[in-house]
């Protein structure tokens, strides 16, 4: 094995170990939710944003806070309400007063919470679309424009938005185009009995000390670079493309459930997100290449908010996860002759 290979293997091993350390640190605060934590870490390494959906009280905010502590990143939180203004998110130029209370004639930028590195957009669907779009612009561009001046946000910039699916009154559901900006939509499940017992035990005593930082900013950026080095073979890329293509109801390769229950399928961002998330997952598993299984594993989190159900699908109670399951079952990973030979073997 060459020296290059050896050093790259060492970096991969280190990345894997880092991931394990992070998970372990978070697990000291968060009980259960391993899959949620793992998916959030994929998004962070891949450079994407996460939409967390779950009932109130499941620890979404705590998870983000804990992650911020572990990563030693600047954390900020925005509680979205209907009267929240875009400038409340981005910040504004304010007139500077002198000591006597008079005007100095000079404006100074008051940065909003968006200038954090790890931003928690709590209950994002409660804000008006105008305010939502201010956040979403920053998510896409990694920059904000205030009074005509563009301000680049400091990397890593990572947004975790939360959504409450049970209180829909007075909310502004995110438009499909804006949902597409999130790399993953992670469902936060209810804890099991054991987990709940543990949560109650932990939270009803003295407050625990916040976790120590496991990863510095530079290390996060290095991991992101390493993630981009992860290779993807053409058959794997084709598999991702086939999955996305089959999610379009008009496609000839679309399964029957897709045709019946979907109005719109995933687009180009969906395919890109599949591969990026797959790379992050491969990296956390210490691999420099993406496997078919990686794509299949990240597919639900990547695609569930990109598939728009039809009226019929909604009426029948078909969930996007069911559709994704049907897609994974219907789309072959390998070319047919290879699949046939594997079946025969």
């Amino acid at each position, binding site marked *: *094995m*060459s020296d*290059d*290979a*050896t*050093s*790259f*293997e060492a970096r*991969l091993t280190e990345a894997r170990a880092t991931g394990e350390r992070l998970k372990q640190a978070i697990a000291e605060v968060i009980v259960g939710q391993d899959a949620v934590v793992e998916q959030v870490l994929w998004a962070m390494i891949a450079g994407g944003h996460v939409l967390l959906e779950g009932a109130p009280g499941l620890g979404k905010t705590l998870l983000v806070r804990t992650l911020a502590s572990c990563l030693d990143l600047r954390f900020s939180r925005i509680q979205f309400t209907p009267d929240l203004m875009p400038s409340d998110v981005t910040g504004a130029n304010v007139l500077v007063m002198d000591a006597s209370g008079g005007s100095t004639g000079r404006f100074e930028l008051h940065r909003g919470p968006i200038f954090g590195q790890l931003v928690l957009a709590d209950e994002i669907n409660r804000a008006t679309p105008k305010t939502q779009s201010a956040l979403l612009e920053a998510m896409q561009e990694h920059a904000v424009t205030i009074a005509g001046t563009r301000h680049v946000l400091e990397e890593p910039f990572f947004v975790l938005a939360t959504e409450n699916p049970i209180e829909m009154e007075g909310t502004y559901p995110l438009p499909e185009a804006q949902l597409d900006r999130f790399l993953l939509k992670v469902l936060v499940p209810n804890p099991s009995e054991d987990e709940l017992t543990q949560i109650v035990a932990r939270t009803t005593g003295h407050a625990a000390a916040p976790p120590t930082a496991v990863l510095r900013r530079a290390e996060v950026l290095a991991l992101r670079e390493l993630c*981009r*080095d*992860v*290779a*993807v*073979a*053409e*058959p*794997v890329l084709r598999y991702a493309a086939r999955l996305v293509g089959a999610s379009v109801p008009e496609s000839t390769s679309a399964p029957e459930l897709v045709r019946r229950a979907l109005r719109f399928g995933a687009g180009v961002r969906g395919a890109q997100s599949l591969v990026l998330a797959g790379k992050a997952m491969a990296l956390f598993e210490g*691999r*420099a*290449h*993406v*496997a*078919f*299984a990686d794509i299949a594993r990240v597919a639900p989190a990547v695609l569930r908010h990109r598939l728009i159900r039809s009226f019929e699908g909604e009426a029948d109670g078909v969930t996007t996860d069911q559709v994704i399951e049907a897609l994974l079952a219907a789309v072959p990973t*390998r*070319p047919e*002759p*290879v699949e046939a*030979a*594997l079946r*025969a*073997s």
Partner: protein
Amino acid sequence: MTSPPRVESLHPLFERWARRVRRRLALRRVLTGLAWGLAAGGGAAVAAWYLRHGALRPWAALFGVAGALFGLAVALRRRWSDAEVALYLDARLGADEVISTALALEAAPGPSANAEAAIAARAARALGEGDPSRARPRVLARAHGVAPLAGALVAAMSLLPLPPSPPAPPPPPGAERVKLERLAGLDAIIALERLATKTDAERERLKQIAEDAKRLRAGLREGMEQREAQAEIARLRDEIAAERLDLGDQKNRAGLEAAVGALAKNDALKDAAKALGDGDLVDFDQEMQKLANLAEREAREQAKQALEEAEKAARERGAGDVASSLAEQREAFAQREARAEALRELARGLEGHLSEQARRDLEEFGETGSPEAQKRLAESLEQALEGLSPEERKRLAERLQKQMEGEGGAAPSPLTREQIEALARKLADPKGQQELADQMKELARQAPSAGAERQQGLDEAERGGAEAQQGLGATPMPMPGETGGGAPGEKPAPSGNPGGDPSKHPPGGPGSHHDTGRGDHSGSTGEVAGGQLRAKASARVNPGAPLHGATLGRAPGRAGETANQAGTGALGTVGPTELDGVERNQVPEEYREQVGRYFQP
């Protein structure tokens, strides 16, 4: 710290694995081809056994070889690419697509050389540490089990005795060969070459028929297919029938109808008119002979007059053949009249020596003109002459002389003045008596006209043809102008009612309340007595020529008859409800008059 195990370079390692995989895949395809080929071969062997092609059965194994070759061709054509092999190996070795990624990066390097090196190293390690037995594509399939079974089937079919042959199908009717030294009836056809004819063309035609009959006779002597001989004789009969019907053809038909109409005006000539209308010149000739024999001069003159008018009418309508036949008949009428007069004259000379029977014959001859009475009278006269004494003969000669002088030679006589003088001289010696007896026989002999003779010859040929057909085992088809149900040579029955009395079957239309038709309307069809009828499936029919009458079974057309005539006609019995049927049918107005005129009697 231990150094990682040394791994081989990826590419040669992958090539080794790929060869193994591809070889087994190709073998699988070859075996599949062999199995299906042998299955087809088994089917072919069964078919060869069933069809009794015994020698072909072992060759059915070649289907297996062909199938294997086909499988090999398919294997080469669908040979897996490196990417496909890599995907297969990834799946079988659980390498998480590292081999595929490494090969892809070899072909198209990525942004990180370090990552490529690490991936290649991992792929090489996966191949190097992989268990070859896990990555072997399966060679045998369930379908391959067909191969030994099919091979066994081919072998069994090759060894199995062939099934017995089915009985050979019977030869087609008439295919058997006949060899006849002499076929009765053919001579009558051959005799047509000697028949007196009106024109050279007709002579050539009859000669050709005779030649064909000779050729058939020669063929039968050497042996030929029965159906071929039957077809040939049927053709000859058809040609003879065409010759017999020439007076009724399209050219002569109008003239014939006019002539028949002219003759029918005279009551005494009604039978003659009918015979002429039927185209029966023999019958017509006999009728005219009877008229010529009549003693009453006026009746004879009327008959001659009618003949002249008929000839004129036929000629005016362009029926040259009919006119010439009537002219010939008119000339013969005069000669016959003279003969009859001569006979009566001689009878008057021998009046005192005639027996009672001879007197009655003389009387009957004069009244009816019967040829039988003529014959009997001539015999009686011959006997009376033999019984004369020399003196009486002399007196008879003198009386004949005086009679001749008294009439001034104006009376029609078959004997000239010089002949009667010579006869009177000869009456005295025995040689002269013999000459006179011969003369009597000549007077008694029927002298048919040339047309009647021709017709008679054709009738004979036709009967000969029917006889020859019977001799060849065929049922002769009644031909136009022939008898309806009687034996050949008999008088024809009234048309449309063969062999029966038309008065017993009044006309009527089938299906109507007034149906008086003769058909059996009970709803069942009786068995057709046609045991000897055979279809001439492979008869040599000239595609350019129409089928002959024996095949078509056409009915004779008769002058003056139409389908709409009450009574009998060419199309059979017409019922009263069918008369004026045009008026009651949905014939378009503009065609009604034309169609009605066509069917008008």
